[in-house]
């Protein structure tokens, strides 16, 4: 018997990152070692907003769901109505346990008739298998078999076109298309985690290096940069997207009562479709809709420039009343020049347009300082440029 791999796994793009890395700052993501920042998180971030940024998302868990009942199965699994998701389309959704609490969120790629890929942060082979009872489907974990690359930023379309991915001009947001580059099959979807124009490329690990090289060659003149997770995380917060483990915990792993969240409590009402047939968590969610939810996800525009990391949220400036929640992600947004945060607060607090207060702690030359800062609850993403949806995108 050979022993299982010891230590961390390498993604198909590991060697490419290793070659450009100068900071030697890495961490573990889903068993793989990935780069925090290959050379400068600030400049990497601006590649996302200004030119083209390339991010390795190969460690994401990928499940292939095939078979005559694949569509019906997914419709049963997730809260969203998957039956309206035609081939060539991608849908964001969440799936819940029977208490209506979110296990994970992810993207569903309708690759072909009866052929789907679900991409998610967590590992779900067990849950997906349990939910498949009674359906004629096959579920394969293809995490290690598919290399994935996010190519994001205002010039990303021009770079990909120059690399040989022709015909992407008609690909709309949340569309996907099967292409070939030099005989190598690549699935391209217009998706991403940055809130900007961007694509994700899905390919065989054997082709990963060649395709990376083609893209970087094509991007050389328009400022292409490989980026690490630090830069991506900042753009994720600006886009207002949820991060599993921060904005919610997987319901199937939480130990303490009340630490998981329902879709309603995450502002994802639009993903719950009661008009479709039964789905996991339906009864509990219907009940929650009737009785009201406990928590509410808030997007906060906070005065000043001190990021509200880990801050408690209060209904008033005075702290005499107890806190109503806390910040889950915070950042100074370079592109909006705003102090932004995502948080979770007890209902009925946190309606869009209302004012809350956050207690910010920050350090200046050893000493800690505290500030109560006014926070306005805003609706939707902090950063949502028109170019994100523009079809065809602007050429460069």
């Amino acid at each position, binding site marked *: 018997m050979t022993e299982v791999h010891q230590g961390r796994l390498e993604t198909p793009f590991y060697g490419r990152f290793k070659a450009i890395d100068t900071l030697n700052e890495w961490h573990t993501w889903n068993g793989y070692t990935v780069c925090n920042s290959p*050379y*400068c998180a*600030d*400049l990497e971030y*601006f590649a996302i*907003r*200004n*030119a083209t940024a390339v991010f390795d998302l190969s460690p994401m868990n990928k499940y292939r769901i095939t078979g005559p009942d694949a569509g019906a199965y997914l419709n049963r699994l997730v809260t969203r109505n998957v039956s309206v998701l035609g081939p060539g389309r991608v849908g964001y959704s969440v799936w819940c346990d029977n208490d209506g609490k979110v296990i994970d969120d992810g993207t569903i790629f309708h690759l072909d008739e009866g052929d789907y890929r679900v991409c998610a942060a967590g590992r779900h082979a067990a849950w997906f298998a349990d939910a498949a009872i009674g359906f004629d489907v096959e579920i394969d974990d293809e995490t290690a078999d598919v290399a994935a690359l996010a190519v994001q930023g*205002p*010039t990303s379309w021009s770079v990909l076109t120059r690399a040989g991915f022709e015909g992407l001009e008609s690909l709309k947001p949340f569309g996907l298309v099967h292409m070939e580059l030099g005989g190598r099959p690549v699935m391209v979807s217009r998706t991403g985690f940055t809130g900007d124009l961007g694509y994700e490329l899905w390919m065989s690990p054997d082709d990963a290096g060649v395709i990376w090289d083609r893209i970087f060659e094509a991007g050389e*003149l*328009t*400022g292409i940069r490989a980026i690490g997770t630090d830069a991506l995380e900042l753009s994720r917060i600006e886009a207002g997207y949820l991060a599993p483990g921060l904005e919610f915990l997987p319901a199937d792993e939480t130990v303490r009562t009340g630490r998981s969240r329902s879709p309603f409590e995450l502002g994802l009402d639009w993903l719950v479709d009661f008009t479709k047939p039964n789905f996991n968590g339906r009864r509990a969610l219907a009940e929650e809709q009737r009785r009201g939810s406990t928590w509410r996800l808030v997007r906060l525009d906070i005065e*000043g*420039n001190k990021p509200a990391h880990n801050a408690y949220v209060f209904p008033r400036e005075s702290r005499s009343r107890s806190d109503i929640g806390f910040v889950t992600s915070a950042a*100074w947004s*370079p*592109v*909006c*020049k*705003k102090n932004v945060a995502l948080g979770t607060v007890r209902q009925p607090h946190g309606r869009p347009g209302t004012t809350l207060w956050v207690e910010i702690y920050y350090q*200046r030359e050893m000493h800690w*300082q505290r500030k109560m800062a006014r926070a306005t609850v805003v609706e939707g993403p902090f*950063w949502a440029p028109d170019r994100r949806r523009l079809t065809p995108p602007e050429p*460069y």
Partner: protein
Amino acid sequence: MKKYDVVVVGAGHNGLTTAAFLAKAGLDVVCVEKNDYIGGAAVSRELHKDWIYSNCSYVCSLLRPEIFRSLELHKHGLQITPYGGSLTFMQNGDYFGSYHDPEVKYREMSRFSRRDADAYKHYAADTQRQCRFIRDFLLTTPPDPTSFHPRDLAGLLDIGKRFVDMGEDRMYETLRFWTMSVADYLNEYFETDVIKAALSGSGIIGTALGIHSPGTAYVLLHHYMGDVDGNVGAWGFARGGMGAVSNAIAGAFQANGGELRTESGVGHIRIRDGKVVGVALENGDEIDADTVVSAMDVKRMFLDCMDESDLPSHFVRKVKEFKIRGSSGKLNIALDGMPEFPALPKGSTLYSSDMHFVDSMERMERAYDDWTDGTWSQDPYIDMVMPTMNDPTMAPPGKHFMSCFVQYCPYEIDGRAWTDEERQQFADTVINQIANYSPNFKDLILHYEIRTPSDIESQIGITEGNIFHGELTMDQLLFNRPVPGYAQYRAPVSGLYMCGSSTHPGGGVMAAPGANAAREILKDLKYANTVPENFGDD
């Protein structure tokens, strides 16, 4: 004829900022501009087909984030991206790089002097201390030291308190800092000539002073106190060129109901019975308003656009004495490709830095000697950037726009106007200096624009083309800017205000003078304030 609440004269970034905050407060505002495009000295212009030129101001760090945020400039298309580092080419074939990464910066300085590399932290801490002192005053109206008004007393007390809080030694240090030369300041920390030369550039950019002139240490600070997202001292580009700044502020102005009129240069500001009543345009049209705000420099505003008899004579005299001297020129170049710099290793991050070609303190000072002799520097200090290394929107892929800011360049040659031949010689001086370090540079030039101070004056309107609307020396800063007793944005005529860079806190694409002026005007007109407060460092 329609009467507006306010006329703002000049659609540069400060005029637009005042206009935007006034419109946001609900006032009916029209902003008039003499050119057929807006932006003043913060413009993007397609001077060669498919090449966008930031042909005046060219980098951005001072723009106050409070103003960006308050006017939601990102929604009006403004994106500021930082760029990496700074570079000085040396005559011996070497170069000195200043890198974004602190460890790399240290290693590079150590290549010249380990002592200097270690001393940099002291220099940085001392400079930051001065930055902290001044940054908090950027978005405030300077208190009047002769006034007993509670607000002025409180403001003076605040300055005094911050000063005393520094501690005894640092109070001495501060007083020295505000009056000393950048050369003396740098000599206290560093021993390596090229390091001092590289750092001293920020002390003279835009001023008619040399590195040994008293007061230039402060000018260095003026270039350091900006930041890009908390990286204090970092500089960035406006995506799409500097016009993106003006266009975004104009977008915010118009979104709040403001009206812009281009090709509407003001002939004179109309005064009746000691009160402003509007403006008369050069085309003969008149616009009525009880409030007029001028973003022009103070000389142009008071000496060219008003009757001196409408103003107190001591004020007119002070305006005439205000130092606003042409000292810098520009060469804006469209390049067919990336110039080679054999001294710099391939793949270096410094290719997207700002580049310089003067490597000693003596050459820095000699450049100034030429200016005092009434001509342009024969071996000039050039601050050269290629925004297209970062910005994919300004030129076709692989092509570049190069901005060369040239110090020194006089307003007149020996007291008379520039000839065409001299303008060409000035351009050749700049091109030759760069070509000394880049063999293929000349072959790549597709087009260039020459701008002497006198060109800048005639095209933009700034007196002598002085980029700061007046020297940034202690006698012309804070409550002395532009004229002692008139530092609170109010002109000596009822209803008339100043909002340009001649007022506190001075030049650079900062928008703080415009915002501060708006706050004072809103106070006088009894409108709710729309101008944001300083974020503050603490």
